[in-house]
């Protein structure tokens, strides 16, 4: 097997994206969905049920009494909280696989994924981008999933990638592509495909380092994820071995005529939101 074939085999062996999350997201997407339908889906998965109850009873919400019914918790949390909880619960498990190759700290990939998701939400909201919230959150959360697979294959080739990056002329993704023949974004796209995510999300993951190559109909989503990734890396959330060696994709900022102060304000809003999210998700900001 050549390297690409080996990696494709590893992609096939990845645990599937939890069906319960997929199905729950479909129900939540229906306007005025039946809560009991949602509860029927969720209750099958004990870990998901436990997480929902745990979040609902967390100090963050400060409820006067303990909630022990799943239905009550679902109603209390509401669709937005629930969607984020389900998606980030699934993603955190995927990213927390030990990855010796690519992460400086064990939970660095996950922290970066979460920061990018939060950043993309802040950008979507404050730039008033007409684009589905779930889609943005999911694509941003999973954009680096290719690194999870790739990091166990790079081992001996890593030094070559590193020295190309050190030369200062190559971004980490460009060096990956040069040394391996493909990059983590491409592999991430393949994983998302194997998980049956829609083409929009697959495109955003595949092209998050090269948004100009994304198909036109998915361009805005891809540019948004690319920008959110840039900003999350820049402010220091989850920079692994690649440091800040990624190319800037500020096209969206230029299109929207945003100035320095606007970007600073977006970062401020992001940080406030990130502190809240880390608090709720029990992630240390570090």
């Amino acid at each position, binding site marked *: 097997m050549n390297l690409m074939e080996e990696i494709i085999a590893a992609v096939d062996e990845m645990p599937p994206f939890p069906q319960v999350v997929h199905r729950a997201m479909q129900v939540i997407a229906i306007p005025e969905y039946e809560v009991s339908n949602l509860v029927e889906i969720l209750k099958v998965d004990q870990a998901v049920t436990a997480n929902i109850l745990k979040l609902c009873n967390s100090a963050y919400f400060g409820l006067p009494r303990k909630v022990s019914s799943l239905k009550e918790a679902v109603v209390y949390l509401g669709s937005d909280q629930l969607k984020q909880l389900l998606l980030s619960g699934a993603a955190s498990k995927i990213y927390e696989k030990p990855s010796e190759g690519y992460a400086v700290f064990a939970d660095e990939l996950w922290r970066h994924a979460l920061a990018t998701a939060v950043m993309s939400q802040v950008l979507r909201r404050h730039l008033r981008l007409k684009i589905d919230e779930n889609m943005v959150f999911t694509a941003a959360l999973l954009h680096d999933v290719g690194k999870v697979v790739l990091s166990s294959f790079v081992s001996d080739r890593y030094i070559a990638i*590193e020295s190309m*990056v050190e030369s200062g002329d190559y971004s980490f993704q460009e060096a990956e592509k040069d040394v391996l023949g493909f990059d983590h974004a491409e592999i991430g796209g393949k994983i998302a495909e194997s998980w049956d995510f829609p083409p929009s999300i697959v495109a955003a993951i595949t092209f998050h380092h090269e948004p100009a190559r994304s198909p036109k109909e998915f361009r805005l989503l891809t540019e948004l994820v690319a920008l959110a990734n840039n900003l999350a890396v820049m402010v220091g959330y989850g920079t692994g071995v690649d440091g800040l060696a990624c190319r800037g994709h500020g096209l969206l900022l230029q299109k929207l005529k945003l100035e320095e102060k606007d970007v600073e304000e977006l970062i401020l809003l992001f940080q406030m939101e990130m502190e809240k999210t880390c608090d709720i998700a029990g992630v240390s*900001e570090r």
Partner: protein
Amino acid sequence: MSLVTIGIADLKVSNNPEDTLVTYSLGSCIGLAVYDPVAKVGGLLHYMLPDSSINQEKAAKNPAMFANKGIPLLFKQCYKLGADKKRMIIKVAGGSQIMDAAGTFNIGKRNYAILRKMFWKNNVMIDGEDIGGNCNRTMYMQLDDGKINLKISKKGMVEL
């Protein structure tokens, strides 16, 4: 020895010689370490943005997020523990950039520029710095001797 973590948009000071202050993942943010070797008082600030005028309300709640609020506060808190401005050793790290010829993502540069401007106005000399590039840095300060170590992506550990 205890490791005291300074988060993003955070500052801490100490006079416990057993402590090591640490702040992780400085990208475009700046880590500012100040130390008085006589009083053995030190402090570390990790700020994100240059100027609090974009949101006064948030600045009041979290001054360490901004250079213009966090830097004076860091010094003041050290003075409270007996540090003297004349003796302070000042070291700075961070202010990195992603690879961007268009200059859209230059917050790191602006974070550093405001610090230089504030120090110049207040006659503060920088004793050591490691700024810019596209690496990320983790900054450690040992309280017993004020030694600053940097862990730099792609380079490893160096003393500043």
